């Protein structure tokens, strides 16, 4: 546990020294502040639109961070050979790998918490409305980001960062549209498409389940996101992340450095 903490904290320190981290964070907050200036925002549904746009921006920011950090955090250590100084110490490779993953999760948690505080204060100042429900959407964004991070980290062991980023985006898109589209293709497509769609349908997580932005944006007036929903989503994210992390640790333990 001690070593996991050391590696995780090294990722946090590393992120704090990267300009790209601050650029993404500041840009996201700036855009959130600019949402009320949108022409459509002055038509009457300002709060819903504000929440929807803020959550959309936060989703993009979190996924960019998750994918970039996942694709580069270990790859950079390998490429620059800083990993020689680490793995030659009395540490196990799985400790390094999981520590780095936890570090990315810490950075994401910190960033999302910051955005939550800023958005809640901003919504309160602008609309005199205290809106802690946003935390639920941010939590599911965090869960989804954990799956994306574990996948990009695993891919980064053998592929270049650019290819990893491309694959992660592809995974994100397919795993979001898979529900209806793949189901239809699986039942109505040609034989090859049926097999391919069936394979993707059963092997990929349905990430659309994590998307509760719209429900939260509308103040949970139509649907409510209860504690049980969040627990199930947490278990689902944990299961997928653990499987991918296990594969990643296995591949990393066999990789020559």
């Amino acid at each position: 546990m001690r070593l996991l903490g050391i590696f995780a904290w090294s990722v946090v320190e590393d992120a704090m020294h990267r300009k790209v981290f601050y650029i993404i964070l500041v840009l996201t907050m700036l855009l959130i502040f600019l949402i009320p200036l949108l022409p459509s925002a002055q038509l009457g549904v300002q709060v819903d639109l504000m929440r929807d746009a803020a959550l959309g921006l936060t989703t993009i920011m979190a996924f960019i961070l998750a994918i970039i950090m996942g694709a580069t955090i270990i790859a950079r250590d390998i490429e620059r050979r800083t990993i020689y100084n680490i793995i030659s110490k009395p540490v196990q490779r799985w400790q390094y790998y999981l520590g780095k993953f936890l570090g990315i999760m810490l950075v994401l948690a910190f960033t999302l918490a910051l955005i939550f505080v800023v958005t809640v204060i901003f919504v309160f100042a602008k609309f005199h409305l205290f809106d802690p429900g946003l935390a639920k959407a941010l939590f599911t964004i965090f869960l989804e980001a954990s799956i994306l991070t574990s996948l990009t980290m695993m891919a980064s062991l053998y592929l270049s960062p650019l290819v990893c980023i491309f694959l992660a985006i592809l995974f994100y898109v397919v795993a979001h549209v898979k529900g209806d589209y793949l189901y239809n293709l699986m039942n109505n497509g040609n034989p090859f498409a049926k097999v391919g769609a069936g394979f993707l349908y059963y092997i990929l997580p349905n990430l659309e389940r994590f998307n509760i932005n719209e429900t939260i944006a509308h103040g949970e007036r139509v649907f409510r996101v209860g504690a049980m929903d969040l627990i199930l989503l947490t278990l689902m994210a944990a299961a997928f992340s653990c499987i991918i992390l296990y594969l990643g640790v296995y591949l990393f333990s066999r990789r020559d450095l």
Partner: protein
Amino acid sequence: MTTVLRIEDLKKSYRTGRKSPKRDAINGLNLEVNSGQILGLLGPNGAGKTTTLKSVLDLVSPDSGNIWLFGNKGISAEARKKMGFLPEQPYFELYLTPRKLLRYFGKLFGLEASAIEARISHLLNLVGLTEEADLSLNRFSKGMLQRMGIAQALISEPEFLILDEPSSGLDPMGKIHIKGILEDLRRGGTTILLSSHQLSEIEDICDGVAIIDRGRNVASGSLDELLQSEEQYEISLLEPLHDFSGGFPESASWEDEEKRGLNVKREDLNATLKLLMENGGSIAEVRQKRLSLEEYFINRVETSSERTEK
């Protein structure tokens, strides 16, 4: 004397491209490093030196063969607690300061905070970077980073130190400094495995050498044993023999203009001695010639290449 590292019939091959055939980086390597010894690992580029070091540190997985560390088979985290490693051209996160970097590595060894701080002061003093302790590493020259590499390798007071090109990037003063550090470590009983292209460095510091070529250990032993030539002899005279003008066997040659010493091959030794005495020469000493490490190294690598080609 205990054996700190024993490598037995180690093999490792790599594929250089996806479709290219596998190439042997190490091909049946055997090697031993004894406690308190400084062993120099020599070899031409691509001989398998770095792959050997990486195998010992568990950075690469050998295809076959065995590695024993401190008497135990395999490379456990427990064994690595007693080891320090300086990679070739070490690179660190440049936003860190020497103090933070050493603190981080100290924590990886599980050292107590107070022990880490004491060790940091000692090491920064040892490598001459005390004044730069809180400067970020992006201001450091290549030589300073190399010294930081040595400091991090020593953070846990290792019993066994593995150094890959420790003098790389250092100016002459830096090299002398490193040599001094290694001699201090030898006096303290640290076992060192040192890979270097600088033959003079190996000859100055090491007790023994192992020459690797094409992934095999082609010669190893103490420097005294290896450099003593069985083929060449040196004859020293008490007085210069200026008047003597010829008739020596073909392999005999004067060492210098002064004509007080002769080099000669073993098969011509008796004939040369007889000629010298017949011409009034007074023999002071006859001894096996000690080769320079460079002569020996070139000789062994060429012999190994000829054997492989045959």
